[in-house]
């Protein structure tokens, strides 16, 4: 187990380094930098910027230096001091801006994963055990719709229906009075009364896929002789199903988190923009359009890092429930 763990941790560190490199490369891509954009807006308004102040900023961030030098400054700041640089647009350290938003992102995505599993597992098991029943067909139809409906469209439809039927705008995560309050029971209640809609939207596509995978896995297992043996020994039917085949069928399902998580993070960005949620998504979009490069870079990098860490956790769970992986080395 220790060898497995160190191996996975090492590859995670390498991946995170690669993520940081890619994130920095992306925010370096646009021609010019924030200062050129800033100067352009200022001169468009007919004002003149103090050249010395501009020069000082340029020095401070190493703008105009070679790529690797800038990257080195950036990454050492992050690793040694936890300093992600400064947001030009908000005129504040990036760290102050993003943690709350990232926290909301993680919270939403985590809840979506939980909902996904709680909904998909029983339905998947039911669809496999009662193959070709009405419920199975409904699950299949739901699966195809989850596959084909883009999540932002689903969010829009949900918001439209909420507006037409209940006269409320679904959106945001908190009512104004709870926006900056401390966590308390009423605030949690307020959170869930807002958050159910984005969670449903985020969980739907993944649920549809999980149901399909669970059904297929379980169908493969149910054919195996040990199930017949268990049944012939007189075990009650629910025990036959739940005790052995479901547990075996769970293994491949756990490994799906690895590719479910990137899609989930992706869709949370776009759903947050549509539903106006205070998560990292809208902030990323805004910082990208205004070339606020350190903010954008930090968000792109942290979203990537979170995905990598989530994948690691799913790998560890998989190794924990499946000894073959633990001892197989890889």
């Amino acid at each position, binding site marked *: 187990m220790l060898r497995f763990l160190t191996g996975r941790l090492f590859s995670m560190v390498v*991946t995170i380094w*690669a*993520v940081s490199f*890619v*994130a920095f490369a*992306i*925010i370096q*891509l*646009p*021609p010019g930098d924030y200062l050129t954009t800033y100067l352009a807006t200022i001169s468009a308004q007919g004002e003149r910027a103090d050249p010395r102040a501009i020069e000082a900023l340029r020095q401070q961030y190493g703008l105009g230096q070679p790529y690797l030098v800038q990257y080195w400054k950036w990454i050492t700041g992050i690793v040694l001091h936890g300093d992600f640089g400064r947001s030009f647009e908000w005129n504040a350290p990036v760290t102050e801006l993003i943690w709350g938003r990232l926290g909301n992102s993680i919270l939403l995505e985590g809840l979506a994963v939980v909902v996904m599993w709680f909904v998909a597992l029983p339905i998947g098991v039911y669809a496999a055990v009662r193959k070709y029943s009405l419920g199975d067909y409904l699950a299949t139809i739901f699966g*195809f*719709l989850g*596959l*084909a*409906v*883009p999540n*932002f*469209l689903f969010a*829009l*439809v949900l*918001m*439209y229906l909420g*507006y*037409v039927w209940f006269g409320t*705008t679904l*959106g945001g995560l908190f009512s104004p009075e709870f926006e900056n309050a401390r966590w308390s029971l009423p605030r949690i209640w307020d959170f869930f009364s807002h958050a159910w809609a984005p969670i449903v939207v985020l969980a739907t596509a993944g649920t549809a896929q999980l149901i399909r995978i669970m059904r297929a896995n379980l169908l493969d297992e149910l054919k195996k002789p040990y199930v017949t043996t268990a049944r012939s020994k007189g075990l009650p039917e629910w025990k036959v199903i739940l005790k052995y085949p479901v547990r075996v069928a769970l293994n491949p399902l756990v490994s799906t988190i*690895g*590719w479910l*998580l*990137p*899609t989930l*993070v*992706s*869709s949370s*960005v*776009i759903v947050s*923009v*549509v539903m106006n949620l205070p998560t990292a998504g809208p902030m*990323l*979009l805004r910082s*990208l*359009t205004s*070339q606020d490069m350190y903010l*954008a870079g930090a*968000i*792109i990098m942290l*979203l*990537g890092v979170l*995905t*990598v860490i989530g*994948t690691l956790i799913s790998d560890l769970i998989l190794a924990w429930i499946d000894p073959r992986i633990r001892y197989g080395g890889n």
Partner: protein
Amino acid sequence: MAIDALTQQPALLRVKRSRESQSALMWRRFRQHHLAVWSLWIVVAFYLVALLAEFLAPLGPGDYNPRYTYAAPQGIHFFSTDENGNWQFGPYVYGYKTEIDPVALRRTFVIDEEVKIPIAFFVPSEPYRLAGFIPMSIKLFGVTEPRAPLYVLGADRLGRDLLSRLIHGTRISLSIGLVGVVMSLFFGVIIGGFSGYYGGWFDGAVQRVIEFIRSLPTIPLWLGLAAALPRDWSSLQIYFAITIILSLVGWTELARVVRGRFLALRTEDFVTAAQLDGASDWRIITKHMVPSFMSHIIAAATLAVPGMILAETALSFLGLGLQAPIVSWGTLMQEAQNIRTLASAPWLLLPGVAVVVVILALNFLGDGLRDAADPHGR
């Protein structure tokens, strides 16, 4: 199973099998998949719409009429009764009348069932070039009275016809899927092919790169790349840049499929035989290996198209993909971003229906092709 069948009806089956080509076998197997066949027709219909967009759309994508902002969908009616109560056939739409919304104090357009505007087929129009090169001056359908409104699916904030824009957007959205997949296929086949055929350290490195790319959330990545496109680029440049951005991630899936097939085939006897005969690597790959998994690649490519279309729609919807003068399903959906707009003009969501139908059809088609790709299987 095949052996059983042969022993039962030996003569008949042997004769039939020996005559059928690979493609005929595939087609026969594909036809058994009814959903896939239906999906094929739907996809073909959508691509025909894309091809004939100028002919099918009653108006141009940019034709606006500020007199009819957010006009409600008229629908098309086929039967009418005249004053004597007799049924008449002939397509028509209802006209509009303005009403002042008592709450918001603004003009809204409601359907006026008093006014009937007949629709005619093959109406003359301004000269245009079909698909960019065939000069024509006739449209499939339209109104005969000049200046009569025709908004079958409603109008947007500038009084542009949603149906016409949807038809024109089909061309962009569907072609971006195809172009993106062709590019992904190019990289995927070359990289995956090398990786699978030669193996070794190159294969290992490519596998790590693919794993890395697939472990990243794509939307933030795409957003970052799309935001880097220079603002002064022309529509065409942006279009191709977006397809390249999408295929930066898209090639990985296809490379995996190709590599898997190469690995499976590399140890096959016919490949070894070709190697012993002294055939060059290039000849072995192009003459012996590629034909035997071409069908798998086609299926995988078909399954990759919907992902591309969805990605373009999402990017354009967020405002970082294709930009305003270009009409795509994504830019059309951008109009529906505001919930208040949506509440008064829900028909702006209709491009989403087109997206869902095409994505479903392409998925079923891809599934059918994948099953049919292996005609000897099962």
